[in-house]
């Protein structure tokens, strides 16, 4: 189907979200709680856009709004811009400790106001870490409590039995809020320590043993040689190919 975004006609597929269609067409809509490998969540509300459906205008979250034939979308209006500025301001005040939020606060030209800042906090509660953990099959962390008390945590704030220390949560976090340290072959994340596997070739630590075991059990076809780090695995493949070609 065809939809119009900012005056430009783009292709969209029934069932996909407005954000998905716009991104594919190279149209930028800002987001904080969206990750391309996960479903839209509608949490941060930064992706709000104006949809005109047969004359009826509505402000919607583009990451959860399913495309409809014939809609006309405007990604930036004075109303939308103000919503985005306020969202950034609110998240900056909540998570003033996050460098990303400090930068966005400047970028969006948010006015200074008297609301208290929170320099200790970095998490913006986008839930991407939780969703990624779920998708990978661990569900070691989740959102707990509600309202202003809401936060990401392991069950009872203790080391989670199911956590495999893969560190995906820390890597996908847009705000740099998840603490992960590595020292002498020991990774510490979410109050749990993991012994790391050293690469049999270069000796560098590349994954927690629990992660390798989890992956081997779940997707054996992907684990070609589990004792090599990613770099060495590529190098080994390249060497094999080189031998094959020369023969």
């Amino acid at each position: 189907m065809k939809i119009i975004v900012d005056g430009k006609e783009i292709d969209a597929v029934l069932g996909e979200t407005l954000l998905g269609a716009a991104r594919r067409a190279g149209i930028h809509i800002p987001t904080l709680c969206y990750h391309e490998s996960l479903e839209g969540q509608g949490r941060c509300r930064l992706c709000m856009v104006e949809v005109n459906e047969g004359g009826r205008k509505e402000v919607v979250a583009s990451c959860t709004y399913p495309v409809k034939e014939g809609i006309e979308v405007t990604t930036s209006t004075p109303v939308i811009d103000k919503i985005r500025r306020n969202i950034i301001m609110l998240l900056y005040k909540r998570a003033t400790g996050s460098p990303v939020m400090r930068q966005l606060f400047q970028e969006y030209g948010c006015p200074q106001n008297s609301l208290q800042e929170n320099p200790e906090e970095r998490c913006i509660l986008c839930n991407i870490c939780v969703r990624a953990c779920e998708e990978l099959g661990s569900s070691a962390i989740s959102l707990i409590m509600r309202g202003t008390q809401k936060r990401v945590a392991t069950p009872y704030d203790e080391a989670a039995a199911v956590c495999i220390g893969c560190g995906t949560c820390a890597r996908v976090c847009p705000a740099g809020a998840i603490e992960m340290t590595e020292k002498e072959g020991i990774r510490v994340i979410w109050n749990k320590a993991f012994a790391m596997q050293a690469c049999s070739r270069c000796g560098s630590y590349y994954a927690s043993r629990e992660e390798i075991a989890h992956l081997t059990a779940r997707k054996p076809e992907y684990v070609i040689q589990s004792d090599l780090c990613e770099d060495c695995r590529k190098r080994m493949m390249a060497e094999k190919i080189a031998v094959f070609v020369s023969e």
Partner: protein
Amino acid sequence: MTTQNPPDNRKILVCCGTGCQASGSMDVFLAFQNQLHPEPGVTVETYAKATGCNGWCEQGPLVKILPDDITYCRVQAKHVAEIIDKTIKQGELVKKLLYRDPVTKKQVRSHHEINFYKKQHKVALRHIGEIDPASLDDYLAYDGYKALGQAFAMSPADIIDEIERSGLRGRGGAGFPTGRKWRSCAVQEASEKYLVCNGDEGDPGAFMDRSIMEGDPHTVIEGMIIGSMAIGAHKGFIYVRDEYGLAVQNLGRAIQDARANGYLGEDIMGKGWAFDIEIVRGGGAFVCGEETALMNSIEGNAGEPRDKYVYPTEKGLWGKPTIINNVETWANIPVIILAGAEKFASIGSKNSKGTKVFSLVGKVVNTGLVEVPMGTTLREIIFDIGGGILKGKAFKAVQTGGPSGGCIPAELLDLEIDFDSLTEAGSMMGSGGLIVMDEHTCMVEVARYYLHFLAGESCGKCVPCREGIDRMLEILTRICEGHGKMEDLDLLEDLSETLKAASSCALGKTATNPVLSTLRYFRPEYISHIHEKRCAAGVCRSLTTFDIIPEICTGCGLCEKNCPVQAIRGEKKEPHTISQELCIRCGDCFNRCNFGAIKVV
């Protein structure tokens, strides 16, 4: 005053709603059961039954005697012997238990003569207080399941037509036309459809759904079966908040009895229609009253709402077409089928048909449940039915629609309330809460109070609601503590716009109502908090000093006796004084003084 010719067949109805039970009505009921014996020489056949809530909780426990039509108020177990002896056996009234009209000072015998009931029009609450909720037979005796029988002679389209023509709008708050909702679900093709009754009544002080579920559970079940036929669903859920133990108990029993008697199950009334109902107990989150959060909760997920760009009628429970209606909406369905759409539509205002149940609470004389036609004015509800403001104080505002409703000032007392007029006035119908406030109420503090409630009850999923409410609360707290600035009011309005436009569900979208409505109608109060650092109502402690006016003080000692910190001193019959060092500004003396001798400085 005697009742002539005591009738042979007497019913003693003991109100056993939650309010009356809290005042000991179960003991009253048991005392009647124990003391009503067939006695030689007495030919009167009498039985007592425990009914649902009569609504007039202020005067409970209530006992009604039929057909004599006598209503006794504030009855205790110790009065039972006297009632049996005088009223039942000799046909005399127990005068001390009759209601005394505060204006005419006359004792009133029948509840029909009492102002609290006179202006009410019971539709959704029609059986409550009359029937025994634990008895299917009693329900059947009051035309129970007759509407269902009638619905079996109708096609699904006919049923939807009837509901649509009645003009019934959803009683849960949003006021969406029920018939249209059903129609949009009926046209969906799906392997499975669901039907939900929303009994997660979360507004503080609201208990209309509770009373229906407790007092007339079969009505809800009957309404749901008719709904299931209209849309083609075979499975229904009643989502009840966990705190409503009696509702769960009575509904559970009613479902069991309905199943055993062929009103639920594989072959309802022998007509080949299959439908059954399951009770789901909510965990007590306010936000789970929001339909999509409720559905997430039924599915076993966290109670977070979903964006509703696709309606539940298309994709609801487990992604299947679902209709979800509030308890009171379901209770209206059998009436519409039985009496006809036209009859129902003849009650109410232009665009809001039928009646609405309100829980009338706060600083009003007659607190309780009242059901009135849509379009009744606030003045009629608060002053005629409610009996006016407690202690003869002045009316200041009424907060409608629960914590995210707005505050309506005295100028709008003649507003005919329905879904649309309340929204226009900056408030909402919500589920029907009416909290009356008197002149000793600080409107800034009221806004702060409700935002505090909402900050705790926001699910925290979306940024505008979670962070926005919290920040508005921060500003309001500052103003109440005397640190507010004028630009704070602009910031409140600015944030409100974002909450309204960008929040995911109605909780965030309407959370601004308490703030915006008080800013609209009571702005000078905000300004006096900010500029003069003064709370004229004497509520905000940091801004209040109480003092005694010596010319008025009679030295009665009431304030001195009740002051929690002994800050008030004085000789008997001499003007008293308040020690400002000891005073914690609780306002107890101010509210208690019978002579108006305490002033807010």
